[in-house]
């Protein structure tokens, strides 16, 4: 049966993961050499490239083995690169990275189709493809050096996207973004080098940068591992960003062109949260557990703080940017809850935030194109002039607020549920974030779409067919992931369980906080004690 052949990863020889990384770069090269007389080809090539990548990511999703070895890496691809230094060309995908790869695959064609650059088309499409390749590299690399290179490479195209095609204060925003994130990851390089050398030292084996080898060995002394974890954590914390390292984000998001904001919010922030899971929890389980309270606290602070600051923004795009700070606070919270519900919730939230916030940025971009302003005070009554846009905005907004039945809820709920079983007070405070998200988004919606429409607001045109088609896939995802997240969760779960087992195995005395399950509640005196201590 050809289908079973197709579905079985082991029989496939086509190196699909390296292709996911290399095809965009190849596309970028092709764009560079296209004849200047045919500018329309730039876009065509770029879109075709990204659609090819999307197709490949779908194929990976389809062929992803959910039965045997679903808890490990699949589609593994290993090539020695620099043998002396133990650096290899090593890729793999598991339930943790799977949906981020698919998300990347979906969002790039949308970003490419959503808007055209005002100038320098060739460079625009070239940089976007380079960016896609870099992002794929981060999600797929199983080699620390390769990972680091890709982690840094993505900064360059994004720097140019903001700096050359951005809005008003773009140079400042681009420079700040570049320097801030670069500074954050500088220590990570030191950490990677130190980790590899110390690992080789401790095991007596050859130098290697292979993630799985290092992570499974856990050869470092506890104290050392904690220091190196912090070096990694700083890089990821800036990238996520975690409060108080977040202030590059509103500037970058606001000044970036729409496509840049979509990619930035949709996938680039996930580099940090993904990094925490893959290179934090997996690589440093003990340190992650040790520092968890710090990150839980920062996550909760981010949720509340981001929402409060978002409420006071006068610029619609800045508001969405600050809402990201709050949403990413949830992801950090779930990650460091260190249980299945929390981490799966975080993964879902990564995908959902990518979908919903991208849609929000697209919508804000569409309003900006029509009204040439993002100031909330200058907008109003748009629901009268653009009812379809208002309807789409409403659905996306409700998803972002976390309305059950739409995608945003499932992730947020699982995060809070997981956090509650582990650290209930954090969860109870964080849950207040759902009140605030309703407050700032509904208030913004009211000021932009409700009320009487005057002047240019009354004349604003509704969504065009192209805009509708760009938004449609995101809307489908918003509803599908809210109603039937099961296929997604099922594919994540083995990998998440494996990660938690890994942490349990390497952290003495740590067990995934579990519910009491079972009905003989009365027979568990120690539980009784905890219970009374917590509730009374």
């Amino acid at each position: 049966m050809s289908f079973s052949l197709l579905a079985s990863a082991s029989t496939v020889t086509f190196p699909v993961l390296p292709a996911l990384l290399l095809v965009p770069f190849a596309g970028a090269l092709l764009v560079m050499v296209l004849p200047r007389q045919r500018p329309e080809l730039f876009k065509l090539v770029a879109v075709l490239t990204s659609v090819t990548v999307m197709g490949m990511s779908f194929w990976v999703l389809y062929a992803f083995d959910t039965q045997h070895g679903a808890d490990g890496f699949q589609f593994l691809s290993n090539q020695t690169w620099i043998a002396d230094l133990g650096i290899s060309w090593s890729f793999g995908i598991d339930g943790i990275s799977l949906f981020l790869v698919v998300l990347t695959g979906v969002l790039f064609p949308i970003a490419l189709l959503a808007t055209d650059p005002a100038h320098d088309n060739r460079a625009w499409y070239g940089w976007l493809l380079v960016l896609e390749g870099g992002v794929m590299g981060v999600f797929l690399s199983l080699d620390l050096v390769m990972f680091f290179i890709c982690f840094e490479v993505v900064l360059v195209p994004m720097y140019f996207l903001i700096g050359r095609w951005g809005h008003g204060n773009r140079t400042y925003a681009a420079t700040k973004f570049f320097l801030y994130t670069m500074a954050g990851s500088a220590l990570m390089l030191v950490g990677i080098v130190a980790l590899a050398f110390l690992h080789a030292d401790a095991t007596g084996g050859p130098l290697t940068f292979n993630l799985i080898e290092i992570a499974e060995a856990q050869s470092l002394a506890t104290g050392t591992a904690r220091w190196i974890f912090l070096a990694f954590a700083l890089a990821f914390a800036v990238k996520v960003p975690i409060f108080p390292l977040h202030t590059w984000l509103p500037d970058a998001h606001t000044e970036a062109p729409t496509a840049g904001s979509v990619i930035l919010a949709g996938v680039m922030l996930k580099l940090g949260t993904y990094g925490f899971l893959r290179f934090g929890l997996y690589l440093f389980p003990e340190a992650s557990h040790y520092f968890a309270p710090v990150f839980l606290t920062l996550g909760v602070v981010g949720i509340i703080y981001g929402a409060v600051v978002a409420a006071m923004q006068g610029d619609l795009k800045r508001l969405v940017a600050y809402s990201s700070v709050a949403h990413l606070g949830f992801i950090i919270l779930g990650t460091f809850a260190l249980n299945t519900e929390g981490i799966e919730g975080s993964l879902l939230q990564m995908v959902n935030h990518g979908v919903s916030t991208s849609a929000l940025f697209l919508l804000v971009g569409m309003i900006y194109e029509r009204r040439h302003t993002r100031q909330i005070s200058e907008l109003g009554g748009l629901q009268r002039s653009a009812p379809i846009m208002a309807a789409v905005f409403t659905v996306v907004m409700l998803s972002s607020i976390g309305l059950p039945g739409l995608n945003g809820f499932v992730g947020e709920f699982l995060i809070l549920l997981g956090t509650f079983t582990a650290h209930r007070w954090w969860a109870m405070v964080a849950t207040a974030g759902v009140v605030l998200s309703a407050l700032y988004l509904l208030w913004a919606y009211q000021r932009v779409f409700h009320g009487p429409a005057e002047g240019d607001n009354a004349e604003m045109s509704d969504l065009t067919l192209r805009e509708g088609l760009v938004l449609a896939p995101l809307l489908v995802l918003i509803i599908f992931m809210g109603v039937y997240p099961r296929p997604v969760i099922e594919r994540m779960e083995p990998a998440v369980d494996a990660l938690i087992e890994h942490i349990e195995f390497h952290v003495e005395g740590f067990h995934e906080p579990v519910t009491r399950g079972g009905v003989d509640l009365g027979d568990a005196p120690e539980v009784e004690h905890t219970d009374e201590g917590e509730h009374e």
Partner: protein
Amino acid sequence: MLDLVWLIPAFPLAGFLFLMIFGRRLGEPKAGWVATAAIAASFAATLGVFLELTSLSVHDRRSVTTLFAWVPAGDFSVDVGFLVDPLSITMCLFITGVGALIHLYSIGYMHGDRDYNKFFTYLNLFVFSMLMLVLGNNMLLTFLGWEGVGACSYLLISFWFDDEANASAGKKAFVTNRIGDWGFMVAIFATFFTFGTINYAEVLDATASGQLLQSTATLIAVMLFIGAIGKSAQFPLYLWLPDAMAGPTPVSALIHAATMVTSGIYLLTRINPIIADAADWLPTLIAWVGVGTALFAATIAVAQTDIKKVLAYSTVSQLGYMFLAVGTGAYVAAVFHMITHAFFKALLFLGSGSVIHGMDGDQDMRHYGGLRRLLPITSATFIVGWLAIAGVPPFSGFWSKDEILLFAWNESPALWAVGFVTAILTAFYMTRQVILTFFGRYRFGDARPEEIAAAWEACLAAATEAVDTAGADIDKTRTTVEAATTAAETARMALAEAQAAATAEPLEGQEPADPEVLAAAVLAAEDAVVSADQKVVEAERALAAAEVTYAEAVEAHETHVRSAADRPAVPELALAAAPDTTEVADHLPAEVAQRNEYHAHESPWTMTLPLVVLAVAAATAGVMQLPFSPSLKRLEHWLEPSLFGNEVHLSVATSTMWILALVAIAGGIAGITVAIAAYQKRKVDYTMFERSILAEAWQVDRRVSDFMGGPGTAGFEATAGFDQRVVDGAVNGTGRLVQRLAQEVRRFQNGLVRTYAAGIGVGAVLLLLWFFMRSGI
């Protein structure tokens, strides 16, 4: 048939999806009929399930139907599944039944609205969410419905979004509800943590068999109570409900009276074993919050003038009764009152909608009066609703309220006393509403205080202007007199000259003038003098007349000023007679005449038919639970499987029950009598009751708004400022510091590779040293 329970929510969902795609094409009225048919089909499906359920033995009356796994994550697993039991099906029956009627009503009410099809799309989605809420077999599915109805409520309150006030009301409802939702979510977490599942069947069975610790039960119940307070508009989270009246009236009837706002009571009834296991103070708290809210809201309803605001506060108050019932362990009474309230309050809201529809959108009861002749069906059905809510036997409200009061007495006479006072107030404010709307004088054409004031201003301005004009007139005529006098003198001089010329000797060497010519000139001059004199007389006469006019104008002005100052204050509510406007009749704005020509009209049959059906239900629904014998307590038997024996058993003697019932009836009659004395007979001054503090709803809303707008916003602003100045300031400060340092460091960057190499070397050595030291070599 029980397996087909999914059909109940499937019909409204299908209606919603269909209307979302084809609604615009269908247009009016087809979209409305499709939506109504969807709910009617759902009602039919509910009836089928209900009949099936009644045919089963009491112990088998619970079944769970699972459709698919919704969120399976780790230990946590939640299905989309339905719990069919007497409680959920009872809820479904009145949700779909009343819902179908309100859909039908809306076909007429929303006639001509530009977003007609959208209204029905939302309404179908609401009913779907509401059914998910009550049918869900686990807390998360209930929460899905819970949030879904909240979202629909938001969309429908701000349905007429062009008005900022409506938009604000919708937002306020959603956000306030979310505060309660916080509690609900925490309760779900705690339930999962405790039981490892959030399916009702397992959680409730485990709890009912005594496996839950009191402290945990208390936590879960308190959190759910917080959720219930938000959704069911109890103190202090009730603030959104009066504002929610901004939505179209069918929405107020369906969502904000009959169904959604009872979700909190449903939820608490659903988890009754958990409440039973909770600390004793919790039911007491629920009862007191309920009865306190009931009294509080009833006092406010007394002084409201907006017909829908009265009903809104009345709803808050009646929901308080239901909480009182839950708190005293009278779950059957709570559900009983929920049902009767759904009938009579939906009826009252729809009736008020019919009145508003007939009165050209006016919602102020002070402008109504005497409508029973103009709106015969509306008034007759409204009166049935009034008798039901006022607790007049044998109308339904009497039975359910009486049962609640009985259980309150059973718990504590103090609870009963507060509930009893509330009942008197309820009878009073509802009677007031009925009299102001349907009885007394038809006041719609009356000139209103602000119009009369404006008319007086216009009148005084006109009088002042008349004085000014008359004054100017005097000046003008005086000038004319002077001119005429001058002209007369000139004419006399001319005459004198002419006479002199006629009598004078001709000069030497000149031809003597022709005497005839001279005589003619004299005659002409004489004529001129006469006519000039006449003009003088005329001018003087005109002046005299002008002076008279002026004096009259001044006097008229003075009279107007005096009567303006002396005029009686125009009451906002002119019960006895229309305000006297004869003196300013000419100056009244055109609207008054327009209103006088306006004919209040009865609504179309699509609106009156639901009124009639609901009126029959509101009158007779008491039969489902009559206290006279155990066999007549049908609802109690029916709900038994859902209540796990947690219904409190009365320890009140039969004689006491009779006395309490008679006292309640007497209280109701007292309330009605006082209202009639004040508003119909005008024997008592009604301003005694309508205190401004009550009209302002004890100023709670204003104070909360002031706080949110003042310190609340300031706190948010301060945080945003902190972010910009401190957090981001630190980043930019670091940037500048690095820049300055770089200026210094630039000296080292001298282009000599040796220097760089040296630097790299030193750095590498240091790094290596560090590694070696760390790894202990």
